[in-house]
């Protein structure tokens, strides 16, 4: 795998291979020495144009467990014009000798532009680009679902027949996009639940079902309910009238939590707005996978770094 830019590019077999390697990586966390020498001598740069401590430390832990050298580059607040700075920064990183660039950027497509450019010849891993994709988040979500379903026998399994409701700000969510492609590739069926203002135009052409009513969606007893973070600025841009109304109609409150099937799970990519899109009880219930998602994130990112950086495909 040369780069990881989006889940849309992944075939079913490629996706399962990443999840399986992540299983092997997860085992390392339980060993006496939680470090593998596989990426010794490789340099991984975390290039973050947006703040995201959670994602950055997850990639950092992953790279370090594989013995890579890690450089954290926070480009936020740089005074250079944005366009110049991506190219200039990339060329700087190339000169430093970066083997992989983990990039978080506010502009959709920035990782692909970097991968297609001749500015740098490193493996590019998308750590979230604008409102486009966040592929490692979707992979860790798929990994988490698979582990809840199959436990230690997860290797080789897809998500055939699993029903997933993704609830909230689909329009601006890179997590929703990456999950929609990946989970359907793995055989799951997806239902988006949101007010029409928070759904993209043309959603009818996506491989998902769409519902406006969360209660109807939950009545179908989905195996997985994934709540998306709702951002305050959306309210000011008139996507919905008030936090209270949003919470009442699209929040996972205690009553709705009680409606869920016994073995269904509740996911959230974090950080959560407790009391807005998810109640404290839902976030802390045994159904919640929030903490597992964080732990699994490291395993997935180890797998992705290993697959993009080892082998002839990785830059020498």
């Amino acid at each position, binding site marked *: 795998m040369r780069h990881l830019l989006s889940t849309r590019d992944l075939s079913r077999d490629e996706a399962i291979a990443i999840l399986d390697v992540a299983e*092997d990586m997860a*085992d390392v966390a339980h060993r006496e020495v939680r470090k593998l*020498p596989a990426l010794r001598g490789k340099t991984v740069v975390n290039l973050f144009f947006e703040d995201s401590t959670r994602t950055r430390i997850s990639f950092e832990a992953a790279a370090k467990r594989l013995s890579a050298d890690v450089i954290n580059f926070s480009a936020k607040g740089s005074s250079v014009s944005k366009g110049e700075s991506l190219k200039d920064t990339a060329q700087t990183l190339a000169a430093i000798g970066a083997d992989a660039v983990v990039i978080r950027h506010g502009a959709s497509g920035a990782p692909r532009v970097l991968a297609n450019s001749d500015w740098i010849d490193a493996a590019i891993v998308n750590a979230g680009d604008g409102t486009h994709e966040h592929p490692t988040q979707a992979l860790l979500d798929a990994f988490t679902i698979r582990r809840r379903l199959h436990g230690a026998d997860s290797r080789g399994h897809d998500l055939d027949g699993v029903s997933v409701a993704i609830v909230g700000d689909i329009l601006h969510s890179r997590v929703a996009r990456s999950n929609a492609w990946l989970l359907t590739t793995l055989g799951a069926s997806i239902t988006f639940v949101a007010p029409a203002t928070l759904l993209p135009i043309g959603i009818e052409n996506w491989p998902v079902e769409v519902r406006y009513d969360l209660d109807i969606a939950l009545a179908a007893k989905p195996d997985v309910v994934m709540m998306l973070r709702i951002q305050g600025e959306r309210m000011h841009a008139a996507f919905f009238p008030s936090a209270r109304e949003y919470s009442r109609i699209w929040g996972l409150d205690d009553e709705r939590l009680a409606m869920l099937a016994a073995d269904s799970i509740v996911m959230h990519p974090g950080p959560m707005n407790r009391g807005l899109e998810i109640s404290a009880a839902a976030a802390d219930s045994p159904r919640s996978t929030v903490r597992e998602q964080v732990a699994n994130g490291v395993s997935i990112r180890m797998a992705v770094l290993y697959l993009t950086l080892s*082998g002839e495909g990785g830059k020498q």
Partner: protein
Amino acid sequence: MPARTVLQQADITRALTRISHEILESNRGPDNLVVLGIPTRGVVLAARIAAMLAEISGTAVPSGSLDVTMYRDDLGRNPTRMPSPTEVPPGGIDGKTVVLVDDVLYSGRTIRSALDALGAIGRPSIVRLATLVDRGHRELPIRPDFVGKNLPSSTNERINVHLHEIDGDEFVTIEEIEGGE
């Protein structure tokens, strides 16, 4: 040159039986033994040896697998290798006599990786090495303790090991390959 069969199924079984006896002899019984196979075919051989040890000695001997992929020194020189699971038996390996099992011993680099991988999961008191075929051409100071068959070979030959559990048939062949290995 077509592939030449050097071991038939019966030869393989006989070799493993002999190795099992030698292990018991050198260990003075089955106590404290753990047999770990190196994926892919080493794992099958390890399981068979563990079963033979149990049968001969009347005491169960744990077996498992030890993936060495992450510890290889040639990751950047070949297409990406997919790792396999490492399965350590419940008793662990601390203070145990670990017998590493592989199908073919060649440069010794895989065993070097295996020793590193072993170090990451515990601290055995003794590590031994068993291999079905030793074809020579060592590049590191590594020597097997138990050998099924010494098979002098040239670097432009390839050894193919087929085992029932994986390949559906069972034999060891040697064949010439173009341009050497």
